[in-house]
């Protein structure tokens, strides 16, 4: 009886065949799930969570990104230039970047104030989500293969104007 106290002999039942099978199967499923994520490093090294990051003060990063935004306003960003994007309550600087397709870019992203999030949402079904943290810059290596517009959206609640935080990546 699950609701009343019982003696050991009463509840200490051997497993049935089905129960044994399922016990083993449940662990096998967990092992398959876990092995896949580990194996994925070998299967596809180019669809991975970015690993590069560095500590930097929010004000310092803000300066870097603002300088970058002024330099490349409405310009196509050349291949060997690192991209900087800073998140503020409630906007991104730069609010638009133009990238070339098929080129590997390094996008540095960090926050000037509170926690934010980066969603890249494209018409081609692209959805990527990362965190943007004050004091820590994320370096994202990314290659867009198709030309088009990708929307950037903040995905971490950051205050009353959170939903206004959008930006654009144009791939040409």
């Amino acid at each position, binding site marked *: *009886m*699950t*609701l*009343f*106290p*019982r*003696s*050991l002999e*009463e*509840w200490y*039942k051997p497993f*049935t065949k*089905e*129960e044994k099978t*399922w016990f083993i*199967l*449940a*662990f096998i*499923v967990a092992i398959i*799930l*876990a092995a896949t*994520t*580990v194996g*994925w490093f070998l299967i596809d090294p*180019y*669809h*991975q*969570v*970015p*690993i590069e990051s560095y*500590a930097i003060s929010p004000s310092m990063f803000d300066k870097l990104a603002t300088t970058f935004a002024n330099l490349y306003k409405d310009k196509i960003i050349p291949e060997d230039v690192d991209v900087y994007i800073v998140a503020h309550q409630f906007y991104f600087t730069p609010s638009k970047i133009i990238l070339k397709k098929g080129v*590997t870019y390094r996008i540095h992203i960090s926050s000037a*104030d*509170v*926690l934010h*999030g980066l*969603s890249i*949402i*494209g018409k081609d079904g*692209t*959805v*990527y*989500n*990362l*965190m943007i*943290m004050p*004091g820590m*810059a*994320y370096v994202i*290596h*990314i290659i867009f*293969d*198709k030309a088009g517009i990708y*929307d950037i959206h*903040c*995905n971490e*609640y950051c205050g*009353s104007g*959170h*939903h206004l935080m959008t930006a654009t990546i144009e791939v040409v």
Partner: protein
Amino acid sequence: MTETGFRRCMATGLLVHLASQRLIVFNFLMGIISLIIGGIAAIFVGLTRSSFVLLEQLRLEHTYYYWLNLHGFNMLIFWILWFEVALIYFVATILLNAPLYSIRLGWLSFILMLIGWLIMNVMNITGNSIVLFTAYIPLSAPPIFYLGYLLFALGVAIAVVNFFLTLYKARIEGKYTGHLPLVTWGAGIAAIIGLVVVAHGVFALIYALLFSSNYGLKGDVMFYRWFFWGLGHSAQYVNVTAMVAVWYALIALGTGFVAAKFINERYARIAFAMYTLFVVPGIGHHILVDPGFSTIFKQASGSVGSHFLSVPSMLHALALLGGVEATLRASGHTSLLGWLKKIPWRNPAISGMLLSMILFGIGGITAQPQTTLQPNLLFHNTMWVPGHFHLTVVGGTSLAFMSLSYYIVPLLTEKKLMSSKIATIQIYLFFIGIFILALSMTWLGWLGSPRRTFISYEELIEHNWFTPAIFLGIGALIAIISGILFILNIILTILVSKKASSATELLKGLISPIEIKDEKESKKTGALVIVIILLVIIMLAVYFVSFIRLEGLPKIW
């Protein structure tokens, strides 16, 4: 003769300590009040995230976060935790014929929780603390808010300690013989995990308190996020474990104790114990796409660790479904799946348990890709996540708690349930509502719609989020109607319903006994087939599809 201060339950014959019972009722009622507040907020968040409300003014661009904040706190923290405190008192006192270790400590815990609850809800309602339940620094609320959070947590911690002392005292005073009932044992595991929660919680909240009171603490978000999720993640396993314990109570109550005999308790107890092993390693799945944490750490803690957390829940699925099958086979329905038709589907406990299991199971399926390092890139902070937890903690835990309420309230008040028919209808409506709501959230998440975000019309249309958002609204309305039925049924039972004069009157409409013909027939093959289809084939399919999708997106590393 019963001792003074006790009454004998007419339905179960258990000794009920009256002062402990009062505490249980008060904690339960605070849970109901929180559910009402959270439910009112659910109307606004539900309609705002739907797309069929055509007036932009009704879609609450400026107050969305206000309602979301109120909803999150009152539902996830207050409704669930008040109920759980009532639950651990119930299983430690009434099921063991024992009084609570200390009634005073019980009231102390209640008052601390009440003060914390009042502070937080006053701050929430006046709009001074819209930080959402995660309260990530450096966003901050006035220090008193964190103090309220802490008092609430402290109150819960005292309740947990009181629970353990109650078990200890009942044991040494010989209030019961043999081993703890399975339900009490499961709740005990929940309480142990509760201690992990409190340990992390106190740390995270004091940190946030110091930060918000400007003592010069710089406030490291990474650090805070780790400890917050030490609280937040582990707390979800308190909810899971408590829910599973409730399932075992429901299967016994609904069948008049018949089906409980066919549960393999040893299997269930091993599964319960496994939760404690795997909880802490899972904390990392909340920081999978944060900068700064090392990949090996994320992988080991977040993904690999978390997958093993589903093993105990998978085992419980077979233990319970197998228990139902074995009972029905023993009553003469011996074909592989024929017993499914013979399940007492109209019984509020059995339907509550099985529908809660289904929703929780689907939640477990959507959990797998989201807890995995690489596919987390697709789902992190999208509507996939609220989709997942509206399946687990709403469809799973809340539905199980609602279903159990239909039994606990009559047993405690000795009053007949207002309407057992409406109870069953309510359970089905909630199942349908949450199923639609949560799967449309999941769909929105697949399309990249961010969570905790007001979405304008232009965006709904631009990103093809319009259609799933229609379903979201429909699901929300059904679930809200169901919630109103639940609250009315419970409140009217307490206020209006008459005292029952006999056990049969008290339990009318609540029990569906099953007649056992041949115990030897009790096989569990059908249940095994079902769990293999749902939790192996479909689960792995959803998981691999996420990887395949990732493969087709722009390269990222």
